[in-house]
């Protein structure tokens, strides 16, 4: 089991908690403690709003071990509204056509399980925006 490897990432995985650079105000995800833009220390946590748009996408048919039960699944690079890009699965797609530029929102879903007895790992995925009333 890889408990600690997943446990220490829970905040970012469950709810897109990243960082903001106190110097250049760049938003950082995944958190890395050093601003990739200006190189200064950036440890202030920042909650991303989970909205973004699709930069690119593909469907994985031949899944790596641990992901077979979900295959085929659609992966995307999502440009978050605040700037950074994240790689994530798209979910709740059904037969909806995916397009570059399509707006998506973050949801927390099961990423995988470590077998029947192992830990369930949850994290961010994105889906087409479910419009509020």
């Amino acid at each position, binding site marked *: 089991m890889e408990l600690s490897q997943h446990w220490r990432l829970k905040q970012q995985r469950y709810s897109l908690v990243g960082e903001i650079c106190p110097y250049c105000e760049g938003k950082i995800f995944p958190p890395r403690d050093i601003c990739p833009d200006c190189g200064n220390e950036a440890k202030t946590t920042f909650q991303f709003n989970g909205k973004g748009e699709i930069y690119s996408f593909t469907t994985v048919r031949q899944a790596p071990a641990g992901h*077979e039960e*979900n295959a085929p699944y659609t992966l995307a690079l999502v440009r978050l509204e605040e700037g950074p890009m994240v790689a994530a699965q798209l979910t*709740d797609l059904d037969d909806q056509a995916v397009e570059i530029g399509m707006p998506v929102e973050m949801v*927390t879903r099961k990423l995988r399980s470590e077998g029947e007895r192992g830990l369930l790992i949850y994290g961010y995925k994105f889906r087409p925006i*479910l419009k509020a009333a």
Partner: protein
Amino acid sequence: MQENKILRPIRKVGIVGYGAYIPRYRLPAREVARVWKADTSGEPSGEKAVAGLDEDVITMSIEAARNALARAMIDPAKIRAVWVGSESHPSAVKPTSTVVAEAIGAVPNTQAADWEFACKAGTEAMQAAIGFVGSGMAAYALSIGMDTAQGRPGDALEYTAGAGGAAYLLGPAEESLAIIEASYSFTTDTPDFFRRANEKYPEHGERFTGEPAYFKHISAAAQELMRATETKPEDYTYAVFHQPNDKFPKRVASSLGFKPDQIEAGLLVPWIGNTYAGSALVGLTAVLDVAEPGDKILLVSYGSGAGSDAFTIQTTEELIKRRKQAPSTQEYIQRRTEIDYATYSRYRGKLSMK
């Protein structure tokens, strides 16, 4: 003065935010009937909501909780309890509630627990939250009823056992979009339906289901609450009863003196099935989505084993502007993808990959 059976907190408590969640997949009852070559004349019509491959009570609770928070517009760090009632907690040991609490930012200064009482685990958590907030111990407490309900393949339950539920953030009445005026719980030992530890599917004893289980408990709970609060069915704009199927809630409503138009808004079973611990609670979100300020709502759950929790709720002016902050129950219902039995089997883990 009569002995006080009614549960009323010291300070008034209300619903500060609410949120529904219903997964997008639908399995029509006719599809279940087709596979089991059932006589469709007497079978339930309608369909049930089915969770996707990457969904479970944890992920569904997180989304419902986020919807509740969006309507409550409060800092999640102020939440002092995250309670999830379900028959389908993903792990037997390892709380659903801790994951939900972490995901919504309610940790670490919070109580967290999973509740179990068949289909009323969610309202049970809500009643406890009333106590938590109403006693002054906490400003806010989150209670959730959510299920990915189990039904043995081919069993009558398979036609209706659905997925969905709702989250309620309770807080001070003055901040609320609906005030919970009183509640009442009615409980007996009645073995109508149960699932032993480590069993995948529940058993219904083919005894008791209607009487003395569902009808007796719901009626007793509703009648005592109305008696104690000096209300009559016609005082309520809406009533929501636990809805294991289309018939039971209609029949219990009628016997209590409620008219069809009082239960229509909250009767979701034809579209999403019986969402077990989520059933009555997601009926209430559908009502809150359409109610006017000042409307009175009677909510009565039922959990096998058996018991009913009854609540009398009155909406406030806050409801109108807050409810637009998150997707409505109907929006989730309309987000619909029909699946066949094979896909359903896959999504529900009934296909063995190993």
